[in-house]
C-alpha cells in the first residue's frame, strides 16, 4: 500500500483534508458509531442480573446455538459449492458460463425477504422440491435444516468471490509440473492447490458464517420460528422488541455483536496470514 510510503513529513499539497476528514468523522459518528454505542451503553447500564438473566434464558441460549450451528453448516456447504463453482468458472469454458458467473451475485442483489418466501415455497410439502423430499420423509420447513438451506444461498457468493481471483492467478504449469513429476491428481490437489487456496477459502467461509449468524429476512419464512427449536438469535431480538423488553433485546444483541466482531477480528488475522502466504 502506498499510504505507508509517504508517512510522516510529507507536505500536504492537495486541499480539503480538514473538510473531508471532518465530514467523514462526523458522518461516521452520526450514522454508525453513536447509534451502535446505544447497545453498549444499554448493556452496561442495566443491572447484571437483568443482563445475564436475558442472555441465559433457555429460549435465548437455544437461539444462539441454532444461529451458530446453522451458519456453521451452511458455510461449510458453501465452501464446497463455492470452491466448485469458482473452479469451473475460472478453469473451464462452457456455454452459459458468463451467465452463471453473473448470477453468483444474485444472493447479494436479491432482497432477503424474497429469498425467504422462495425457499419456504420451494420446500413446502407441495412445493417443487418439497414434494419429492416428502416422499422420502424428509421435511425442511420449520426445521433447522431449512434454515441451513436459506443460509447456504445467502453465503454462497462470499466464498465464490473470494476464491475466484486466487484460482485465476494460479498457474496451471505448477500443477502440470507436479503431475509430470509423478504426482496423482488427488495429490496435486491436496498438496499444491488446497494449501494455496486455503486462506482465501477460509476468508470466504468466515464471511459467509458471519453473515449467516445475523441473517434474518431469508430465514424467518422457512424456519417456522418455533420456540426452543427454530428461533434464530436475530428473531429473539425482534420478539423482545415486540414485547417492549428493550433491556432483553439489547442484551441479546450485545452478545450477537460480540460474536460478529470477533469473527471480523479473526478474519483480519486470516487476511494478514493470507497476505504473508503470497509474499
Amino acid at each position: 500500500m502506498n499510504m505507508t510510503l509517504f508517512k510522516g513529513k510529507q507536505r500536504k499539497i492537495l486541499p480539503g483534508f480538514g473538510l473531508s476528514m471532518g465530514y467523514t468523522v462526523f458522518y461516521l459518528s452520526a450514522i454508525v458509531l453513536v447509534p451502535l454505542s446505544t447497545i453498549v451503553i444499554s448493556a452496561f447500564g442495566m443491572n447484571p442480573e437483568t443482563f445475564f438473566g436475558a442472555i441465559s434464558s433457555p429460549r435465548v441460549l437455544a437461539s444462539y446455538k441454532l444461529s451458530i450451528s446453522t451458519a456453521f453448516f451452511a458455510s461449510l456447504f458453501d465452501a464446497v459449492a463455492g470452491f466448485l463453482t469458482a473452479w469451473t468458472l475460472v478453469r473451464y469454458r462452457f456455454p452459459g458460463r458468463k451467465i452463471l458467473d453473473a448470477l453468483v451475485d444474485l444472493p447479494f442483489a436479491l432482497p432477503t425477504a424474497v429469498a425467504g418466501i422462495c425457499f419456504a415455497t420451494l420446500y413446502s410439502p407441495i412445493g417443487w422440491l418439497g414434494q419429492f423430499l416428502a416422499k422420502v420423509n424428509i421435511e425442511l420447513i420449520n426445521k433447522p435444516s431449512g434454515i441451513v438451506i436459506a443460509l447456504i444461498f445467502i453465503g454462497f457468493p462470499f466464498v465464490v468471490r473470494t476464491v475466484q481471483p486466487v484460482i485465476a492467478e494460479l498457474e496451471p504449469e505448477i500443477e502440470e509440473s507436479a503431475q509430470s513429476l509423478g504426482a496423482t491428481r488427488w495429490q496435486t490437489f491436496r498438496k499444491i492447490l488446497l494449501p494455496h487456496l486455503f486462506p482465501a477459502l477460509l476468508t470466504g467461509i468466515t464471511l459467509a458464517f458471519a453473515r449467516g449468524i445475523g441473517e434474518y429476512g431469508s430465514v424467518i419464512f422457512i424456519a417456522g420460528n418455533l420456540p426452543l427449536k427454530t428461533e434464530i438469535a436475530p428473531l429473539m431480538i425482534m420478539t423482545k422488541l415486540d414485547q417492549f423488553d428493550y433491556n432483553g433485546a439489547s442484551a441479546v444483541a450485545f452478545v450477537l455483536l460480540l460474536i460478529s466482531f470477533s469473527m471480523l477480528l479473526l478474519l483480519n488475522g486470516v487476511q494478514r496470514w493470507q497476505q504473508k502466504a503470497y509474499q
Partner: protein
Amino acid sequence: MQTNNTRQATIIPGPRSKDPLAVRVLLIALTFLFFAGFIFMPLALVFSQALQKGIQLYLDSIVEPYAIEAVKLTLLTAAIVVPLNAVFGLTAAWAISKFSFKGKTLLVSLLDLPFAVSPVIAGLIFVLLVGSRTPFGSWLGEHGIKIIFSTPGIVIATLFVTFPFVARELIPLMESQGREEEEAAITLGAKGWQVFRIITLPNIRWGLMYGMILCTARSIGEFGAVSVVSGHIRGMTNTIPLHVEILYSEYNYTASFAVASILVFLALVTIAIKGVVEKNVHNNQ
C-alpha cells in the same frame, strides 16, 4: 466485508484447464445442479407463482393502492439515502486516499462496521436511540417529531445498512490511482474544487456509479432493519419488501410473489449493470 479483490474475478480470463474431459463434465454438471436448486429455481418460482392466476391478477396486485404506496416510500427512501451515502463515500475516499494520517487503518475498518451488524440490530440501535421510550425520543415526540414507526426511522436505518457501499468501492480505486495528477494540477494553479471536478471525478465515475447502484439495490431491498423501525403500517410505513412479507403472511401468495417479482427484476437489472460497469472499469485502467 467483501474483500477488495472480489470484483476483479470476472475480468481475469484465467488459464484454460487441461483436466480430463470426464472431470470437466462432472464438475460443470455439479455446478449447474447447484445453480438449478439455489439460483434458477427460486427465480423461476417467483414468476411462476406471480403469474399462476393470470396476467390480470398479476397486474392488479402490482397497481393496487397499498403496493403503489409501498413503491413510493421505497423510492423516496432510496432517493434520500443514496445521495447522502454517495457524498459521504466521496469525502471519505478523498480524505483516505489522498492524504496520510495516523489511524487510517482503524478508520477504514470502522467504515465496514455496518456490514458486520445483523440487520435486526441495525434497526434496534435506532429504537434505542430515538424510540419513544428514550429521553431524546420522548423530547422529540413532545415537539411533534416522530422517527420510529415512521418514514424518518426507515430512512436512518437504511442509511446505516447501506453506509459502506460507495466508500468501499471508491477507496481502493482512488488509492490505486494515486495523487500525482491532482498534485500536478494544483501546482499549475488549479483550485481544489476544479481539480476534483475535472480530474478526480472522471477517473472514478464508473466506480462511483457502481457503488451507488449497490447502495440503491440494498436500500430498496433491505428488510430486517426496516422491519424493526417501520411498525408495518399499510399505506404509511410499508416498503416493498415489507409489503411482500405482509401479503405472504396473509396467505395471499399470488400477490406476494407478484410484488416480489418487481424486486427480482430490479436485482437482475443490478447484476446486468454490474457487468457493464465492470467492463468499463476494466477498459479505463
